[in-house]
């Protein structure tokens, strides 16, 4: 199999693009959650946290229905000529983003919450606009949060199985990621290959989580996560 069709490559591509989009979505969301005190905040927090407790198959199932040619997302996409995203890489990407959202939003939110309002006030008295304050004060003080969010978002996307199976199917070169490939290999009794991939994922996950721990350890005094 060609490299760009391989489950390894598809997994890396999926995790990289997911993490990137997740950071773009989660940063403003986490900032708002960290500063807002209204009731609506609890609603949004709960929605973001749903994938943490829901079986991935449930999420995958609803996404599949929504993205199918007659679904409430699929039908308009079809009409626009984009086509149904069920069993495509893009569909899988949407699933991954929803599935991993909490893993990126939470560490960012925790990090932003530890940014002192008083420093932001001081920045305002020194002429910094709200956006300027965010980029010049909040972001640099939340670097450990960004690193943790990136690592967890990436690792969690790599580790997903249920959503990938439901929404992506098992299409070689398109949606067949590592976790599904391992399932296929086991089904086919190809234990040697399964071992190879599984051990690889184990080591990779360990290294990422170890990195997260190190980041948190080094900044634990000012940035509890």
């Amino acid at each position: 199999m060609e490299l760009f069709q391989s489950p390894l490559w598809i997994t890396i591509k999926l995790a990289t693009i997911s993490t990137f989009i997740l950071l773009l979505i989660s940063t403003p969301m986490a900032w708002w959650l960290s500063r807002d005190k209204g009731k609506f905040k609890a609603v949004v927090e709960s929605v973001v946290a749903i994938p943490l407790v829901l079986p991935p198959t449930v999420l995958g199932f609803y996404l599949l229905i929504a993205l199918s040619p007659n679904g409430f997302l699929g039908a308009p996409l079809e009409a626009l000529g984009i086509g149904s995203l069920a069993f495509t890489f893009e569909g899988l990407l949407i699933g991954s983003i929803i599935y991993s959202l909490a893993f990126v939003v939470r560490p960012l939110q925790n990090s932003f919450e530890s940014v002192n309002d008083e420093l932001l006030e001081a920045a305002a008295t020194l002429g910094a606009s709200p956006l300027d304050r965010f980029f010049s004060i909040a972001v640099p003080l939340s670097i450990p949060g960004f690193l943790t969010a990136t690592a967890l978002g990436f690792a969690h996307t790599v580790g997903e199985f249920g959503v990938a199976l439901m929404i992506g199917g098992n299409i070689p070169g398109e949606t067949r990621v590592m976790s599904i490939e391992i399932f296929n290999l086991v089904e086919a009794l190809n234990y040697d290959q399964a071992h190879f991939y599984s051990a690889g994922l184990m080591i990779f996950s360990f290294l990422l989580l170890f990195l997260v721990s190190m980041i948190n350890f080094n900044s634990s005094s000012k940035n509890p996560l």
Partner: protein
Amino acid sequence: MNVLPSNGETPEGLYAQFTHMRGTFSIEATLEAPQSGVTALFGPSGCGKTTFLRLLCGVDRAKVGKVCVNGMWWQNRSFFLQTWKRPVGVVFQDSRLFPHLTVKNNLEYGAKRSFASKRTNGYRVNYDHTVSWLGLERLLDRFPNGLSGGEKQRVALGRAILRNPSLLLLDEPMASLDESSKIEIIPYLEELRSELSIPILYISHDIYEIHRIADRVALMEKGSLLTSGDIKTILTSLELPISRGSHAGAVINADVVEHDKEFNLSILEFEGGKISVARGGMTIGKNVKLRINASDVALALDKPRNTSVLNVFGVKVTGIVEINESQVIVKLDAHGVAMLSKITKKSLDALSIKRGDKCYAMVKSVALMA
């Protein structure tokens, strides 16, 4: 007393008026300050001083308020300028330096975002001058976490000044410092009024700090501004509680005129006469500020002879007020300079002095402020 100039005219210096509720606490205050000089906002903890400052710089928004600084409206009935658009410099009690930036970058944070000179009446601050004035050269590459309390406040002061503000606000900048750090920072605060020609508002509940740093005082109590005026007038005003408290006293200005080499004294002169202070070698011609505590001033009907007290002035009694069951404060006028004397009712009875009488004030000690 404080009336906003009618239609069209904008007040000079600082003009601020707020009606604001914060929980059950309400602020109802009007403050005016001249175009330059240090005005102290003085009052007990919890009287609303910090809230007033927050309303003034726009961090909190008063529902009803008017703020005008050197002819530029920051807030009025229909208009509210966001904090970050106001040419204001604020020094907080807790310095609030940015921990991820070096001292240099902290200083430049405000400087980079500072206002063009046209918006600040042509006043411009010089970066190098400010850094050397505050003695920050050695600290530029360091991070705030490694600095002492006094160093942090010097950086915070520099950062606020380099913003090139048209109003400088200081919120108890020495309240969280230890004694040695206070001694380190106080000379800079005393020099502020000559360094900057903008209105400066200095919040404090420490009367001694205010004596040293301020020219004018605004008294605040339970969310209202009682009165404001020249520090010498306010401190010795018998109508105000400040003249009856345990720190009652007067501040006078005097010039160093000669030295008494034999006894190592400096002789100072003010309108009411000459004062000897037990410190030699002061620069002749220098104008200094002295504090005379009410409890250090004794009264005599005849010019005292054979006394250890060196400083005796002929004064006129201008007022007497009872401060408790056994003591009174007597307000004195020494050729136009007000002083206070705290004596017992028994002494008052023995001397039988009343308003308008002439007598002699014996000053047991004076404190040199600057």
